[in-house]
């Protein structure tokens, strides 16, 4: 019961801390409105016009379908990236030699601009979900991989010795000793990768697909519909914020609660 109260209190505190963020966002909205008043609807539609355009699209033009398809592509690319890059990065981090050998390759892949991957992916996969998902995957992979590798490399040798003395199995050692240390490296990388995957999936759609938020934005561009464009931008940011603060951040707080003392 006491625990339940504590958890409930924590959730309330967390949600309440959102007001600070909300205040700065409202300030931004005010500035936006001011800009609109100065420049007019064609250059910068008001926040209200943008939201209205978005709602109109959702109500009349299957925009929900576009949103879902974009989410799906980002999720596939990001999910595959998180799983494979985290696992292989951790594995690579167990060996000094492997980490040294892979370092330049990671730098090399990270050096390729996302837009170049989109072009390649378009040629390889054509107008398909795979194009966007692949691009996301290939861009987030090295970021997460490098962090996972670093996290594993930087683990405490002292705690490893302790675990060896008490003869913990490989799995117990990984789960109870290594993982909590690696998480501190992995989480920031996951959050950065999540932000990137949204930007990239929209970019890939804008250039090469018929559906999705990016494609809808390409359509808005053709129609010179600035309000719809702004509406879509709001939508992208909204989804990103939801995932980060309602999903990733609470998980981070939970696994790193020992650091909060």
């Amino acid at each position, binding site marked *: 019961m006491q625990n339940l109260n504590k958890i409930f209190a924590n959730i309330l505190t967390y949600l309440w801390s959102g007001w600070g963020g909300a205040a700065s966002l409202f300030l931004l909205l005010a500035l936006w409105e001011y800009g609109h008043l100065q420049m007019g609807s064609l250059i910068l539609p008001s926040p209200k016009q943008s939201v209205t355009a978005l709602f109109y699209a959702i109500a009349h033009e299957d925009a929900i379908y576009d949103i879902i398809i974009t989410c799906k592509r980002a999720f596939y690319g990001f999910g595959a990236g998180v799983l494979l890059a985290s696992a292989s990065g951790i594995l690579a981090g167990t060996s000094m030699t492997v980490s040294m050998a892979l370092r330049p390759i990671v730098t090399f892949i990270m050096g390729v601009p996302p837009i170049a991957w989109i072009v390649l992916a378009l040629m390889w996969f054509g107008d398909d979900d795979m194009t966007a998902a692949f691009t996301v995957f290939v861009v987030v992979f090295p970021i997460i991989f490098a962090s996972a590798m670093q996290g594993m490399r930087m683990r405490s040798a*002292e*705690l490893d*010795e*302790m675990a*060896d*003395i*008490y*003869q*913990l*199995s490989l799995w*117990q050692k990984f789960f*109870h*000793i290594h993982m*909590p240390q690696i998480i501190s490296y992995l989480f920031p990388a996951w959050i950065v990768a999540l932000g990137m995957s949204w930007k990239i999936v929209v970019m890939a759609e804008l250039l090469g697909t018929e559906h999705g938020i990016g494609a809808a934005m390409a359509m808005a561009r053709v129609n010179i519909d600035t309000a719809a464009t702004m509406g879509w931008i709001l939508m992208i940011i909204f989804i990103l914020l939801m995932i980060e603060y309602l999903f990733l951040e609470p998980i981070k707080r939970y696994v*790193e609660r*020992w*650091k909060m*003392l």
Partner: protein
Amino acid sequence: MKSLHLKLEEFGYLPIKPNVQNIDIRLVAGRIVALIGASGSGKTTLLKLAAGLLEVNKGQLNNSFRHQAYLFQETRLLPWKSCLDNITLSLMPVKINVDLALQYAQIMGLTKEDLAKYPSELSGGMRQRVALARAFIIQPDLLFLDEPFSGLDFTLRAEMQQLLLSQMLDKQLAILMVTHDLNEAILMADEILVLGGDPAHIVKRIMLEQARDKRHPEYIFYEAQKLMKMPEIIASFAIREDR
């Protein structure tokens, strides 16, 4: 009878030059052997070799003890686990037993409230008690001590030493300990090995015949004075002054 025998020709972290050489350490159940020497003289290295944390390449390690525990200079608790979970960690390979953990925590002077906390919420002495409980809960027959109490104040330290000795008498525990504190060595050990030279080797072996419960402060003081006049000990503690 259960015993530990470390016979080492040499050992070095780098192939160029050995750090320790010609070592012969024997330990049987119910006895305490103390390694003393200046800091940097290779005491911890020897302890790790004996515990199997470092690999013996040139030499032999025979260890017939079943359950060994190790108290490090630092507590090496997991900051992300509660004290209770830290104590039961050593039971993980066998079976986690919370009742047993509570029992040992009580022996070590920890309350139930302490156990729910993270290590960072406890004082240094309390953390050392958690580490002690984690070590004793597996009911070791062999214990390695790497100056675990050096960071504690005088009274706490004496209390910890008594706690350890009482545990030891109950269980025929064998202890291999490292210390740079002569008084601690004289209070606890049956045999003192003085480490010196470069590469380090055993320069002197001292047997202490006095029964452990008869080692009064006067006795310790007297023995320490005697030891401090030995040329080997003077040399061992002075050798690295130039650093």
